[in-house]
């Protein structure tokens, strides 16, 4: 009973619009699958969908590489250091997306802060190409998604049974072997949850690729926007959205089935 208001809200604000959106994608007078046929026959749509998947996967992996040490430090720090790290992780998270994007533009431009500094130090001769391309998208998305990786990892690391690494050490394993053979496998659920979370949220990104991606950093959300606002082809926009939604759900389902995602949120099966 207590759930009723939330369910009504969810039905009205999520289920119903999504249903209408899906129906619209099949509603061409020329036949129900016209938009989907077009989606398959025009190669750029599938190519950009594929790129979207690759950008998101790349972001997820970068987040894992960068986030794991941070989560580890967070889990093993004293209370003061932990507070400082948490603020460092959360402060950008609470900062407006546009502000951060423009910050990156100032920082990464060919004549931006970073390139000017490196040139001045004599470390490079030509400005590095860090923005308006794939690199720009990955840098921007990784920074924004990092908390989604760090927090699940941190949750797993604090709940981890500390006697297990200690036992490994006492049984003669070195610190490196203990880390890779005991610690890392024990934190895998957190890593998987983080990867999946970052990946699926990244799929719908719009602002970052639009501002930092240049011509080659196109992602599927930009195609949806074009179809809604410029060509007024809402059917096509719906078909693209449904495809993206289906892809996301499929990946989530796989993640839940094989990696038991529920466990990370405390749901036991």
């Amino acid at each position: 009973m207590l759930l009723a208001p939330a369910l009504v809200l969810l039905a009205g604000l999520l289920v119903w619009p999504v249903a209408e959106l899906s129906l619209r994608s099949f509603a061409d007078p020329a036949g129900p699958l016209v938009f989907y046929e077009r989606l398959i026959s025009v190669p750029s749509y599938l190519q950009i969908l594929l790129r979207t998947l690759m950008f998101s996967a790349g972001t997820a992996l970068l987040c894992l590489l960068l986030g794991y040490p941070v989560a580890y430090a967070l889990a093993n720090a004293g209370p003061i250091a932990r507070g400082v790290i948490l603020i460092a992780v959360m402060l950008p998270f609470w900062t407006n997306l546009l502000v951060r994007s423009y910050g990156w533009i100032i920082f990464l431009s060919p004549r931006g802060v970073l390139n000017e500094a490196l040139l001045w130090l004599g470390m490079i001769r030509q400005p590095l190409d860090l923005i308006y391309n794939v690199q720009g998208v990955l840098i921007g998305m990784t920074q924004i998604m990092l908390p989604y990786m760090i927090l699940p990892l941190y949750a797993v690391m604090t709940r981890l049974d500390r006697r297990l690494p200690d036992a490994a050490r006492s049984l003669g394993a070195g610190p490196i072997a203990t880390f890779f053979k005991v610690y890392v496998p024990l934190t895998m659920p957190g890593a998987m949850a983080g990867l999946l979370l970052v990946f699926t949220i990244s799929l719908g990104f719009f602002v970052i690729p639009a501002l930092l991606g240049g011509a080659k950093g196109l992602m599927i959300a930009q195609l949806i926007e074009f179809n809604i606002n410029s060509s007024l082809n809402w059917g096509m926009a719906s078909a693209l959205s449904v495809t993206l939604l289906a892809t996301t759900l499929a990946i989530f389902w796989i993640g839940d089935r094989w990696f038991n995602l529920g466990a990370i949120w405390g749901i036991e099966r």
Partner: protein
Amino acid sequence: MSEFINHGGQSRRAFLVGTAAAGAALLAPAAAQAANERIVYANWGGSWEKAMRRAWADPFTKESGIQVVSASDNSLGRLQAMEQAGKVEWDLMEGLPELARVGAEKGLLEKLDFSIINRDGIMKRPEFFNDYSIPEVIFGRVLIYDKRLPQKPTSWASFWDIKTFPGKRAFYNKVESGILEAALLADGVPADKLYPLDVDRAFKKLAQIREHIIWYTTVTQSEQIMREGQATMGLLADGRALSVKSGGAPVEVAMDVSLLTWSVFVVPKGAPNKEAAMRFLAFVLDEHRQTAIAMAYNYGPVVPAAWKAIPKDRYNLISGGPEAEKTAIFLNADWWTANLQPVTEKFQQWLLG
């Protein structure tokens, strides 16, 4: 298509205007009587909105007593959403010519009342005349170049001549921004044979300078690229190009190498105060009001008689000068409306390939 407009301070202004309007509505004594005393005008905002207010809205309010209230996000998508929700809040909307074509096609627009609006003074171009829209102002995209280049570029062919004019080229990554037209003109297609565009030929020509192109995706970026000298030539919205120049960067703007387009006024179907909107449109087409807007902003008047009162030294700061009627190249909105989707898909394919 807000690339043409400087968005400085838009949101705060829109908020203030909106609040003032809400306040006015609350204070209005009789709702029925108040209904015709204000029109809601969806526009691009920013410095352009301020110019329109000075040149058009304020004098109109003074003359007629009708308030003009601004609304933001003047997009087709938004209009269609309002129409489907059964609640159209706008009386008037500005946009690119596609707005009139697609809007009429989708049944989203009201026919204009030409017993109120007098079109006699408008420049005699066939694309300016249809049942659902009137032209608003002329603007365009121009060639901007670095003054340190060894020679002065004179045409789109210079744009493709990397040997004589070394350096990168800046293009907008929207295919309808004139890049295909520039490519075909550079390839020797005569201006009057431009449409229907030979898309494949244009992409072939573009491929010649492919690795020299920097694609900009936002207007800020287009200015930044030229200001910092990342590119030595670019195809930029006129206002943007002039703002780079006036900002002190070593660039020059070739106003004679330009591709012109225009904006239109339309009245959404079901607009609550459409008659007042028609009166506003009639007011705006007046010769003196057209002069006023060309003095307040760098966009060209659509009524040629307006040029009489514009000082000569302002001519090269305004798009579509007095000669535009004969020599200028206008982007063909009809062709683009019909072909935007397939050509955009082709363009994305070309970019990725």
